[in-house]
């Protein structure tokens, strides 16, 4: 019997050419859609920024000064975050610190407190008319500004305090997975515990510290909410100022353009910094390292950990609860502002649902396409995440004002902005989960005559269900908290919870801001809590 000739195209399965062809078209279609979503705002922004007339509106020296200030603020707050995260991570993972499991759990809570709420709590405490100044003024009889959280150093303090969990989580993960045999072999080679930490543990943690530091740095560079409340002049606040106070769109565009360049520079720099070193030390047989006994350092270490958690968790939450006042006041604010809740919930819910569906399709397409097309797909999606919210807001205003005026000023733009910013969370989640599914499952289904579509629907989707739930929750949380782009893009009168919190804080109505903040924190913490509980019970 002669074998029938088969024609194989590189990258497609010869078993089912027609469906492979459809899949290919699907990939191209998705690539085009994602490209249209993410790239035009940036292209249009660049075009506006490099037009000649804009050069005069912002002077070179003032631009350099602003850049210096933005970068040093981001850098210093990152160092501060590292100083908080490193000792805390080491203490809760590697030592016999009392309550270290609770501590490890609590240390992540600042991620549920958006930095503008963090700023609000410390303004309530340490602002010019804050609790401390009022109390000190009354006590000494001299109304005087004793402490002042406003300004550059306040910004550094707040951002570091609420971004350290990024570093903390990665360092904890690295400490968990480091093979204890590596540290033991350093012991047999003549190093004591301190030497092992300095020469082996710390260098091995460096990639995690750098990766977490990068997240904190980018957060600080792109943050608008807290820095605006703290009256710090950096790129984001200046862009907002140019746009909303001076109505100078071209100056705002130029500033945005420079900020995007700086962000991209940081991302490229990080690639070169890590270079070819790989730090994968995870092995199948790795035992859990035995905890270090703190001995007489037990109580100083507990005080340090307690201090960090106090500043970043207990104090802010305590202030919010104290400010919110009685249950009646609470209920009154809720009744007054019910409409804004609804706005937040349905826009974030819609964005999360769209991101989940798109993420599944893009993740699957990127995996199937592999190689350059796949990388291009997920890379394009990532760009959206790297754009600061303020810049994204401005870009969309410029674009839709010019080309799609009917879309401008609608809720649609808002949802679109959430999608551009947070789609990557969903894509990355799906890609990671798909990567963990044995490819033989898909091959087995294909050999049983299932088309790629059937495989996605009947094999992958059920296996991915927990992941899909998780990415939905993740995008929902992010969109619920989003302030920077929302502030610029919301239709007149369409306020969300973060916008109301921002406005109340600016107007020094701290009690109202506190009530809304507590609700927002609860709403964003709930899905996350449910998720971790389910994961612990192995349901997810």
């Amino acid at each position, binding site marked *: 019997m002669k074998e029938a000739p088969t024609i194989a195209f590189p990258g497609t399965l010869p078993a089912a050419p027609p469906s492979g062809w459809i899949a290919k078209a699907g990939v191209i279609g998705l690539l085009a859609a994602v490209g249209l979503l993410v790239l035009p705002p940036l292209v249009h922004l660049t075009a506006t920024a490099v037009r000649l007339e804009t050069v005069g509106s912002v002077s070179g020296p003032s631009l350099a000064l602003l850049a210096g200030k933005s970068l040093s603020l981001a850098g210093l707050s990152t160092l501060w975050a590292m100083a908080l995260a490193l000792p805390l991570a080491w203490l809760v993972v590697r030592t016999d610190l009392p309550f270290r499991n609770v501590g490890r759990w609590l240390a992540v809570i600042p991620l549920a407190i958006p930095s503008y709420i963090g700023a609000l709590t410390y303004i309530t405490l340490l602002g010019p008319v804050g609790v401390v100044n009022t109390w000190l003024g009354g006590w000494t009889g001299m109304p005087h500004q004793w402490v002042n959280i406003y300004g550059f150093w306040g910004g550094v303090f707040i951002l570091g305090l609420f971004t350290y969990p990024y570093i903390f989580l990665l360092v904890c993960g690295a400490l968990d997975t480091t*093979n204890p*045999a590596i540290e033991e072999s*350093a012991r*047999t*080679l003549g190093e004591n515990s301190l*030497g092992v930490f300095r020469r082996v543990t710390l260098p091995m943690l460096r990639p995690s510290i750098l990766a977490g530091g990068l997240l904190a740095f980018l957060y600080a560079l792109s943050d608008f909410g807290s820095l605006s409340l703290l009256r710090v002049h950096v790129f984001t606040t200046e862009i907002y100022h140019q746009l909303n106070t001076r109505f100078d769109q071209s100056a705002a565009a130029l500033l945005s353009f420079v900020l995007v360049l700086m962000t991209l520079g940081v991302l490229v720099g990080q690639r070169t910094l890590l270079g070819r070193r790989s730090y994968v030390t995870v*092995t199948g047989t790795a035992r859990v390292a035995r905890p270090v006994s703190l001995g007489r350092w037990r109580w100083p270490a507990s005080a340090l950990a307690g201090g960090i958690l106090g500043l970043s968790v207990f104090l802010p939450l305590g202030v919010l609860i104290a400010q919110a006042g009685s249950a009646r006041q609470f209920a009154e604010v809720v009744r007054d502002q019910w409409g804004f809740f609804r706005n937040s919930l349905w826009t974030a819910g819609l964005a999360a649902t769209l991101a989940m569906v798109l993420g599944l399709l893009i993740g699957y397409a990127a995996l199937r396409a592999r190689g350059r097309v796949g990388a291009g797909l997920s890379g394009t999606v990532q760009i959206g995440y790297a754009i600061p919210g303020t810049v994204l807001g401005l870009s969309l205003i410029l674009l839709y004002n010019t080309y799609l005026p009917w879309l401008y000023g609608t809720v649609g733009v808002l949802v679109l902005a959430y999608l551009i910013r947070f789609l990557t969370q969903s894509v990355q989640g799906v890609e990671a989960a798909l990567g963990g599914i044995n490819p033989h499952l898909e091959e087995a289904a294909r050999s049983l005559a299932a088309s790629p579509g059937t495989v996605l629907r009947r094999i992958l989707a059920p296996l991915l269900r927990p992941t899909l739930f998780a990415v939905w929750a993740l995008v929902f949380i992010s969109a619920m908290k989003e302030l920077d782009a929302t502030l610029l893009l919301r239709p007149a009168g369409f306020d969300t919870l973060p916008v109301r919190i921002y406005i109340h804080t600016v107007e020094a109505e701290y009690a109202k801001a506190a009530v809304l903040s507590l609700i927002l924190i609860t709403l964003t913490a709930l899905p996350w809590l449910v998720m971790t509980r389910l994961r612990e019970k192995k349901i997810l």
Partner: protein
Amino acid sequence: MTLIELSHISLTYPNAATPALYDLSLRVEEGATLSILGPSGCGKTTVLRTIAGFEHPQSGQVLIAGRQVCGGGIRCVPPEERGVGKVFQDYALFPHLTVWQNVAFGLRREGKPAADRTVEETLGLVGLGGLEDRYPHELSGGQQQRVAIARALAPKPIVLLLDEPFSNLDPDMRGQMREEVQEILRRTGTTAVVVTHDHDEAFAMADRIAVLNSGRLEQFDNPESIYHTPSTRFVATFVGQADFLLGRVEDGKIHTETGIFPNVDGHPPGTAVEVMIRPDDIHIVPASPGGAQIVGRQFRGSENLYTLLLPSGQHLHSSESSTTVYPIGTTVDLRVVATHIVLFPTP
């Protein structure tokens, strides 16, 4: 000279019901290789970790080169002050350091020129010249293993501890690496303790073998004695194929289905005993009618392992050269040529 001495070591892990090591005593002579052999979970890695100083036994003493490092009321000497080198099962190379830096790690107390010389020598010894600037993840499994050995040997340790050193290598690499490691140990005159679950590896490498089972020492002897005159039934079956032939003591001899054996242990008349028979002790000759029947054959390359059925229903094994093949069903006569008679009381 005795270089390592463990006496009456007992160790129970926290929250464990049974001890990991129970009243264990071992000695290693200078320049010799000791192999600790046993199934997984028998405590063999714990012995290594006790010598290295990562585990502290609740009782017993550890002496390294005449110095007491554990037990006898003193605080256990920490691993970095014991002068032991260890090669880990998963190599545990420092992922952030190059090959050169990995090997130089333990040489900080030597001056830079001396350390550089040692690194170069050691890398030459393990055949890794030219790979100095690679990072561990850029090396193959065999190369990583060589780096791990070089790193442990560079500070000239009193003893080299190897924990399942070849288990992460492909089978075809294993034999080659084993010979190379033996050659390195011989050339440097290094005393070594090798933990393994593979009896062929232990036989090939060790001067002495300690067989461990459930934290207890079953036998401590040279490889030949371990194979030919195992002291327990466990050792007999763990280090190779063994059959146990039922017999009874009568007129000072042991009478079995296949013949008469001398009563080497002087069991009293009338006792039931078992004679250990290894497949290479039995030869078969086709005969009709024969004393046994071939019921199975495993081809093993240089030999055929036959399963034989005796009239009583008991099975025996015989290994024969693979040049002739007897079909299944053939009736055969047995010729038992046992140079070492090993008797066990019936269970």
